[in-house]
Every structure is written in C-alpha cells, then in structure tokens.
C-alpha cells in the first residue's frame, strides 16, 4: 500500500503538521481552562498527538513515501523541505521520545503550574525537530533549528523556583545563542561562496568550483559548529552537562535523545547533500575534508564524555556526560564517510542512525527513571540509589536494561546498534575509530554498572522509602525498556531501513 498516490504532496509533511496542531490544541485547552490541574487531558492530548504523528511517519515509512519505491524524495516549497526515508525515520524517533516524555510528565508535573505550556512547548520543539529532519535549505535548517531550540530553552528553565533549572536554562540559552550566531555566520559565508541556500544547489555550484575555498571552509566549520551545539559535541558541548542535570528530568530525556537526534539528522543531510565529500575535498586547490573534522570531533567527544562521566557522583550528571559520549559514537557515522566509500558510506551512516534510534529508547528511559527517582524524593548521587531494587524491582530492572544497553551489552538493542556502528566503521577502514570507541565503551561499562551496582548490590540505606508508584512514569519506562530489549531481536527492520534511507543520500 502506498499512501499519497492521489493526495497533494504537502500531505507528506503531515507528521509535522499534526505535531504543530496538537501544540496549538494544547494551548487552546489551556486557555479554555487556564488553571486546571487536570493534566490527564493535557498529557493525553500531547501523547496522542505525538503517537499520531509517529503513526503517520511509520505508515509513510512502511509505505515507502519519499523513497525509491515510490519515486524518490518528495521535495516541497521550492526544495525548502524534502520528505524522504531519513526524515520519516527520524520523525519516528522524535515522536516516540515525545510520547514517552509526555506520558512520564503526567506524574512529574503533578501539582506544577503552566502545564499546558509545558506540553505545548514539547510538541513545538518536536515540530521543529521534525522540520529539521525535512529541511533541504540552510534557511529552513536555521529556522527549524531555532524552532526546536527556543522551546527547549524555556523547557529547561521550566521550574522557575529551582535554581538548578534556571542556571541550566541560562547556560543552555547563552551557549545556544552563541552557537546559533556562529551557525548563522557560517550559513552566510557559505551563501557568500555559493550564492544559494538550497542544499542541492549549493552542491551544484560547488561542483563548478570556487576560489573562496577559505571562506567555504570557515563556513562549513561554523555550520558544523551549529550542529555540534545541537548534538552536544565538543567543543559546543559545554551547556549539556548542566542543562541535562538542572533541567526537569523528562526535559533532559527529551533533549538528550530527540534534540540530539535532530542535530544529527540535519547534519547528515546538510553535509552529505550540500557538501558532497567528493566535491569539497578537491575544490580550488583546497580540500574541505569534513570527515576528518568529524573524525576529530568524534574521538574527542566520546573520550571526553566517557572519561568525565566515569568519575561523576551524580547519576543524572553522569548520564549527561554519557550522552555526550554517545554523540561521539554517532559522529562516527559522518567521520567514517569516505570519497570512494560506495555502499560502505550508507552502511556506516545507517548504523549511526540506528544507534540514534535505539539511543532514543534507552536514554529516554534512563532519564525518565531518574525523573521517577526525583519524584520519589531520593537524591541524585549513586549512594542515594543504593538498594532501590529491593523497593522497586521492576523499575530497577528497567534501569538495568537501559544501563547495560547504553554500555552496549547483549541482549539489548544498544549492543546491536553499537556493534553495527563499529562494524561499519571498520568496513570503511576506520578500525582505529572503532578501537577508540571500544576503549571508551569498556570504560562506559564501568560507570554504567555503578548504577546497577548501587541498585542491586549495595545495601539499601536504613531510611530508604519510596513514595507513590507513578503510573505514567512506569508506563513510559517499561515501554522504553521493552523497546530496548526488543530492538535486538527486532533490529532487522531498524538497521535495514536505516541503511537503505542512508544509502539514498549518496
């Protein structure tokens, strides 16, 4: 069944539209009944909206919308947007994360004010991310990136009485503003060189060559910087530890999973479409070899993230750093692209996408577990986690799944995606990159297992008491856990889709 045979093309952006409308709907509900504490309705609406969008994306994906099977990518609005396999694939990530976050927030936000705004912001951010996935022009890239960022700033600083939240918001915002400025400047430079903002046209004009190689290089570097900010990669990562630590845990989950993925999808598209490696590495006597750049960033990012995470005392902050480390893994997808890579390019990029997909589940789940612990009023340090398993075995088991999956152990999705990534990296000849990744993931095993150790092995402190059993959070966490587990036996559709849609970019 192939959807949209007889429907107008703009329908292809349905996921984004649905998300946006749901956001508006939430605002509407909120205005109708401003000070309602009945967040069941809000959370439900948000979740439904997200799921609906995700459902549509999945339906399109299965139907082959925007893929070779149905006549290739659908580009709209003068090539400003494009709907293809990759955008739909990532839409799936954003929406599923958004859904999980919304469900979990039902409990997290209980007895908080401005809940309508919260959900609306989440959905608007999701919309922005979805659009990032579709952006085919630096203009839309910039706009959608801002559309994803601005709500995020507000979300991070959502707890207005909580100094941590405020500080997190501030740092996130300031670094974000700086990065977007750098990003914008980079765009302007590229425009200066190529005279166009639409990605394919940029590639076309570059193919004709230019004498402003230096300017181009600077522009490319700055654009990469903008993405590095979104993906929390070195050297634009500084906001991440604080933002993730200070923000409300569900927001941390949302940012560290979805927002990161959004950064990657747009990076993937921009660099593969606008700056084809073959073109830019042999241009006007220069070589803007961005795979080298990303190889550098990948190594530094994963190393810094993992090493910093290894010595944390605060679980949430540890996860924040680990999220930086995983950004490093995902960067391998871009780093391992080679001029004459052929199929290998698609493989490694797809593997990176698959990793982000799995990461969406396991990382969101992990942060939501922290949200639950915060809900229980336990501390954030490893000691505070001692013996949780004896009180809440199911949640602890789920958290164990997330931790080991993040560490890349079977039988969990993280194992598959990570090794698929290393596998394809080696395929592209970047065995040393895989080796660095190996060292890092071994180290990560150390600090992830500290959480497990605290929960299962350590003796619970005498006064360990957990309060309610938040239903919504349990649902979200268990869903994430089941997803994480099933993604190993069910890795086939993920990896194959990912590598197919990735191959379509080259």
């Amino acid at each position, binding site marked *: 069944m192939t959807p949209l045979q007889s429907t107008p093309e703009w329908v292809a952006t349905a996921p984004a539209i649905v998300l946006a409308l749901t956001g508006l709907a939430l605002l509407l509900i909120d205005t109708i009944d401003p000070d309602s504490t009945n967040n069941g309705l809000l959370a439900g609406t948000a979740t439904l909206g997200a799921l609906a969008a995700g459902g549509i994306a999945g339906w399109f994906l299965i139907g082959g919308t925007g893929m070779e099977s149905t006549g290739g990518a659908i580009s709209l609005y003068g090539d400003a947007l494009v709907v293809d396999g990759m955008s739909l694939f990532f839409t799936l990530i954003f929406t599923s994360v958004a859904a999980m976050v919304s469900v979990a927030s039902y409990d997290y936000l209980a007895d908080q004010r401005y809940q309508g705004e919260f959900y609306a912001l989440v959905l608007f951010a999701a919309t922005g991310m979805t659009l990032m996935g579709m952006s085919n022009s630096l203009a839309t890239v910039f706009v959608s990136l801002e559309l994803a960022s601005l709500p995020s700033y507000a979300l991070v600083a959502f707890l207005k009485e909580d100094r941590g939240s405020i500080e997190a918001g501030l740092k996130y915002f300031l670094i974000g503003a700086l990065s977007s400025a750098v990003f914008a400047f980079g765009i302007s430079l590229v425009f200066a060189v190529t005279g166009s903002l639409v990605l394919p046209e940029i590639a076309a004009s570059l193919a004709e060559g230019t004498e402003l190689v230096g300017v181009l290089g600077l522009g490319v570097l700055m654009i990469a910087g903008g993405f590095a900010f979104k993906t929390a990669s070195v050297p634009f990562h500084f906001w991440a530890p604080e933002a993730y630590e200070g923000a409300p845990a569900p927001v941390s989950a949302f940012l560290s999973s979805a927002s990161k993925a959004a950064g990657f999808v747009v990076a993937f598209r921009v660099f593969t479409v606008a700056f084809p490696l073959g073109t830019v590495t042999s241009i006007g006597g220069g070589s803007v070899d961005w795979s080298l750049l990303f190889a550098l960033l990948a190594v530094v990012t994963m190393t810094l993230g993992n090493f910093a995470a290894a010595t944390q005392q605060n679980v949430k902050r540890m996860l924040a750093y680990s999220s930086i480390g995983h950004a490093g893994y995902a960067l391998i997808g871009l780093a391992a692209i080679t001029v004459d890579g052929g*199929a*290998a390019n698609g*493989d490694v990029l797809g*593997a990176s996408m698959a990793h982000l997909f799995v990461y969406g589940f396991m990382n969101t789940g992990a942060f939501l577990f922290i949200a639950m612990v915060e809900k229980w009023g336990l501390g954030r340090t490893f000691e505070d986690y001692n013996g949780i398993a004896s009180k809440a075995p199911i949640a602890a088991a789920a958290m164990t799944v997330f931790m*080991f999956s993040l560490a890349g*152990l*079977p*039988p969990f999705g993280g*194992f598959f995606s990570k*090794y*698929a990534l*290393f*596998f*394809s990296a*080696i*395929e592209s*000849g970047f*065995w040393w990159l*895989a*080796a660095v990744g*190996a*060292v890092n*993931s*071994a*180290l990560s*095993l*150390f600090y992830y*297992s500290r959480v497990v*150790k605290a929960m*299962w*092995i350590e003796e619970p402190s005498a006064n360990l008491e957990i309060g309610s059993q938040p239903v919504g959070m349990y649902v979200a966490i268990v869903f994430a856990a089941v997803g994480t587990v099933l993604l*190993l036996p069910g*890795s*086939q559709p993920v*990896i*194959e889709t990912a*590598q197919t849609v990735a191959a379509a970019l080259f």
Partner: protein
Amino acid sequence: MIIEALIAVTFLAALVTFVLPDRYAGKAAFALSLAPVVGSLYMWQQYDASGNALLGGNIAFETDVVWLQLGQYDIHWMVGVDGISMPLVVLTTILTTLAIVSAWTPISERQSQFFGLMLLMEANLLGVFTALDFFVWFIFWEAVLLPMYFLIGVWGGPRRKYAAIKFFVYTNIASLVMFIGFVSLVFGLGDSITSLRLPEIAQALQAGQLGSFAGLSAGALASVAFIAMFIGFAVKVPVAPLHTWLPDAHVEAPTPVSVMLAGVLLKMGTYALLRFNFTMLPETARAFALPIALLAVASVIYGALLALAQQDLKRIVAYSSVSSMGYVILGLIAYTTYGVGGATFQMVAHGLISGLMFMAVGVIYNTTHTRMVGDMSGIADRMPVTAGIFVAGAFGYMGLPLMAGFAAEFFIFKGAFESTVMEAMPLFTGAAMFGIVIVAGYLLFAMQRTLFGPFRFDGDYDITEAPFHDVAPLAVLLLLTIVLGVSPDIFFTMIQDAVTPILELGGAF
C-alpha cells in the same frame, strides 16, 4: 530445532525461577535444569555429525536462517554442533545442574534471583557453544557476562564488588579487541563471503580468499587479526599474564559460581581459540608457534608456582586452573590429533575436575566458614566422606591415571611432543610437563595441612559431615571423572573426528 528448544527451555526455566518465591527456587531450579540435561544427553545420543563444523563437515542439529542484513553481509541464525562443541554442551548442562544443587546450602538470600541467573547463564553458555554465526555467537558470548557479574557481585565475598567489576570490564575489553580483529578479517575477505557464518568465513580463508584491507597485506592482516583475537580470547582462558581477574573472581564468587566459572566459562576462551584462531588461521598460528608455546609453558609453570604460594584453598585451585588451561594452549598449538584433541578433551576434563575441586572446597567452607589452610587441620576426622572425595578429586587434578585429567594431559603431552610445528616442541612439552610435579606439590601440602593431622579448628562452628545434597554432586562429578578417565573414547572419538580436518588444513594464502 532441538538446539533452539534446548536454549529456549533453559531460558524459560530461568524466567520461571525468577518469579518463584525464594523458598522453592533452589529445588525448582534443580528440577527445571534437568530438562536441558536430558535434552543435551538426547542430543548426544542422537548425535550424527562428522568432521569439523567450520570446515565443511556435516553439522548435527543444524538450523540456518537469515536473520538480518548488516551492511553487505547477512547475519544468520545458525546453530549446530560438531565433535568439539557436543561434549562442551553436555558438560555445561550437567555442571550447571550440579552447581545448582551445590548452591542449596551456601545461598541463603535472594535465592530465586540467584538460581534464575544460574539458568540464564546456562542458556547463554549453550548459545556460545552451539552458535555458528559470528554475530549470534558474539551476542551469547557477551551475554554470559551479565549473569556472571551479578552472581559475583551480589552473592560474593567481602571484595565481591571489586572482583565483579574487574571481571566485567576486563573481559569486556577483551571481547572488543577480539571483535575488531575478527571484523577486519571479515572485511579482508571482502565479497568472497556473503554472511558472517563461521563455516563460510573459515572456508573462505582456507580457500585463500583473504585480501588486503585497511592498508594491510593479506599476510599482515591475518597476523594482526590473529593477535587481536588471541589476546581477546586469552583473557577469557586465561593465559598468563592476562589472568589476574581470575583469582579475584574465584575467591570472591560463591562456590557454585566458581564451579561454573572454572568449569565452563574458561572453556569459552579455549573453545573460541580453537574455533577462530587455530581453525581459521592455521598458517598464522604455526608461524606464531614459538610465542604461543612460550605463553603456554609460562601459564602452566607460573600458575602452578603461584598456586604453591597461596593459603586460600580457592585461590590455590584458581591459580591451578591457569596452569591447567596452559596445557590446553600447548595442545592446540601442537597441531596433532592428540594435541588438539587432547586440548579439547582437557576442556571437558578440567571442567569436571576443577568443578569437583571447587565444590569440595565449598563443602568444607560451608561447615568451617574459612578457606584458609592455616585455620584448620584434620578435617578428615570429622568429614570423612567429603575428605575422601576431596583427596580423590585432588589426585584427579594431579593427573592420576584412569581419571579424566590424566587422559587429557597425556594426550596433550603426547601430541605436543611429537608435534612438527617447531623443532623444540619436545623441550617445551617437557618444560610444561613439570607442572604435574608442582601441582602434586601444592595439592598434597594443602591436603596434609587441612584434611590430615590431629583435628584442630580455630572457629566456633562444630564440624560435622556435610549433608547428602552437598556431597552428592561431588560424588557424581568424581564418577564422571573416573568414567571419562577409564574410557576417554566416550568423547575422544567424536573430538578427534572434529579436529582432524583442522590438522589437514593446507596453505591459506
């Protein structure tokens, strides 16, 4: 399908045990674990394979379906057994059941989790020994770590957390090194293979399909991959000097876990060495004969001498495992029927005997609550049966004829001595064989000081004979050891059948 059934049943047994109340968990786990035992014995009785699974022999109970596609390669769900894996499968199921019984006494808290994890580990181990696709195999290989981590970390001794994490991270790094080495080998084969099935890869390598990759010529690539894989597996074996996780893990782990660790987990390493390094890259292996033989001898003598210095009974047995596994390496590098066959036989034999020794130590520990040689003496006076079996097991460990250990060691020595990989192999063999003197030394000393002499015990427990369900597994193991020692052909025939193709391998490139 029987292999899938075997693994699935074991896995279900684990899940069932998890949800059972602690009270019944032990007994239930035992009852449930009988299913895989029966299954494996049935397999053994129905066993009809011939030749080596990787080298085009016909594989027993084979299933082979495409699971998914990773890059240009298919990943198959491919399982099956040949003469090398069949004995190890039987060993795994039997040893797990006995270990479960031996855990009834020492494990007094969170039983359902403990026994569940034991069964979970069994399921994964069965997967390791039956999987014939690299990725499937690798999943099980890594999955074994999880239950082990908890089993050591939760139920272990005072330094259990340190030991658990050390085991966990150390072996994990090893797996990653091995992974990189093997995968570069795969890509060295390029388009000459379409899947990650081990037989396909092995045969492609034999056919000389290995090309250059990542700037390495075929030969160099083979060497690099060989070294990487060897390091990766040597940690599991363990080969000195990569062994230091083992004593800690053994000492801290509860007895039944030590039994599994020494009895089966170490065999994963040697099994993998045989399957990967020595089957896939025979030429390279021969080229590296000297360093490998040196490592083997070093492990044997070094491990034995270390065991001599220990005061903790468990530590003694732990280091002696390093020593015994050194023999396996020696046998593997020999590339003779008796060498490689004996090495494989030693995997089983050492599995039984080290299991027996650890259990015996555990039974004594259950009553004395100490393992220090100095803390007791004349235990045989109060625990005659246990002591008797302990002595028997110890002599088995020393390689007493008509017990499995002797058969294995003699095969290895014979095979290694007449090996043609090196002019000096007889010297290495002779050097390694001195292990049989040292092993006698430390075991006899330990027994003289703990079991014999006037009864003395610095502790306020009253020492009485162990309950039946503690002694029964010991007796069973002892019986099996003797049966295998009197008639090694039970396994040796099928083992030889599977290893001879390895010896006939010609030039790979």
